[in-house]
């Protein structure tokens, strides 16, 4: 399974988004569409997914708990299904104070565990309060996870599975040993049905490596940063590193998810380097 992430535009001009999607069309199984990521306001993932589905692309719609209460979430989910969207990726969502509308009211009416449970109810033909739907949904629901999990994180991981997550997309992996540890730690909790898709971010420079190290749940090992520092062509080095990680992960999990910094112009080359195309 290969998926790739795109961000809807900040505005109504979808041309760059569509150009990115055209680059991915025949090389990925599905395109992930983010939901106001980092709490920066953008075009809605529901609209973006709908546009892409109409072009015949398979999408995974991100849905966060930050911006909508239980009515709006359900309404959007039913709406998404009616527009052909079948895959959703549930997450809490970065806090409003981290984005470009700092003073916005953070909603979090539901948390990600409760949201997964609510989707399961919609799939069974009922809304959250048990009222019958005229036509149910049938979503493939996923959740996100860090690969470096403390006790509290592990408890939540377990709850997400209990409430119906059948795939997980992980935070970007740089240290394959960390990832192996994560797979080991969660092996008893997961059944074979639960698929793990590892996140991949090709490094672009030494500074991008340092920046990513300050992102929760990401750890770029020192030797990797050194390689980036010493590289004559840091972008090429970043691709080489990412391709190496993908090769190593292939036997460990069910798929990879490509989240480049910037656009997808190098995603095909990366997947070729990794032997996936």
């Amino acid at each position, binding site marked *: 399974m290969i998926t790739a992430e795109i961000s809807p535009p900040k505005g109504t001009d979808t041309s760059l988004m569509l150009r990115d999607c055209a680059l991915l069309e025949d090389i990925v199984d599905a395109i992930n569409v983010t939901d106001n990521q980092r709490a920066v306001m953008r075009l809605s993932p529901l609209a973006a997914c709908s546009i892409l589905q109409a072009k015949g692309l398979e999408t995974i719609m991100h849905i966060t*708990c*930050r911006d909508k209460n*239980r009515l709006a979430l359900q309404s959007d989910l039913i709406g998404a299904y009616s527009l052909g969207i079948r895959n959703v990726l549930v997450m*809490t969502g*970065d*806090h409003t*104070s*981290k984005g470009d509308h700092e003073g916005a009211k*953070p909603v*979090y*009416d*539901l*948390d*990600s*565990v*409760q949201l997964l*449970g609510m989707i399961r109810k919609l799939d069974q033909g009922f809304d*959250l309060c048990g009222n019958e739907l005229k036509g149910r949904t049938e979503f493939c629901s996923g959740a*996100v*996870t*860090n690969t470096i999990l*403390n*006790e*509290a*994180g592990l*408890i*939540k991981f*377990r*709850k997400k599975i*209990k*409430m119906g997550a059948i795939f997980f997309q992980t*935070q970007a992996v740089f240290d394959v040993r960390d990832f192996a540890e994560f797979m080991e730690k969660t092996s008893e909790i997961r059944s074979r049905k639960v698929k793990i898709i590892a996140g991949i971010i090709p490094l672009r420079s030494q500074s991008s490596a340092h920046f990513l190290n*300050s*992102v*929760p*749940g990401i750890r770029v090992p020192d030797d990797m940063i050194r390689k980036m520092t010493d590289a004559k062509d840091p972008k090429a080095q970043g691709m080489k590193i990412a391709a190496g990680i993908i090769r190593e992960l292939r036997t460990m999990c069910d798929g990879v998810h490509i989240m480049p910094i910037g656009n997808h112009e190098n995603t095909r080359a990366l997947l070729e380097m990794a032997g996936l195309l």
Partner: protein
Amino acid sequence: MIISRQKEFHDILQLLAEKNIFIIGCGKCAKKQHVGGEPEVKDMKKRLEAAGRNITGWTVLNSACSISSWKEVLSVNPEIERSDAILVMSCGGGVSVISGFAGIQVYPALDTESLGGVVCNEVVTEQCGMCGDCTIWLYGGICPVIQCAKGLLNGPCGGALEGKCEVDERLCAWDKIVERLKELKKLENLDKINEPKDHMKKGRVKT
């Protein structure tokens, strides 16, 4: 205890459009936090006078949010009736109660932040999320509704960096909850799937 902080003096000055101002402090929470007791009221009087305002008088009520007789307040503080506005140095509860009686313009000198407490003389903020449906024992006595920046009821969000909340310098409430439940030997509490809160239980929608 209701946690409040004083507004910026500049902002208070901007509020006070009227000429003759009476100041009311509060002998409960605001006094304990040193934002609305006698010293602070006197200081406010001094600063407002220095800024050219006429302060008709001041008092510190036993509790600004609990007034049994406004008549009695007026009889002890007749200057109130010669004032154009009242500046209240209490939480929003006190400002609201006094506004209901006063019949003249009432301004808040404080901003009300949260429901907290005092531990060994130290003010602790955000202890209760006032959800109207208390389940704090499930979390070892640490309220996730308010102590978790996102109010999450089923575990942490994954945004903490080295144990710190993604929002500010506070520690992740969920790490604290896990530690406390371990101490209490009740970690299994966290296996429970907690349902979304019933917001009908908040006082606000009941009235």
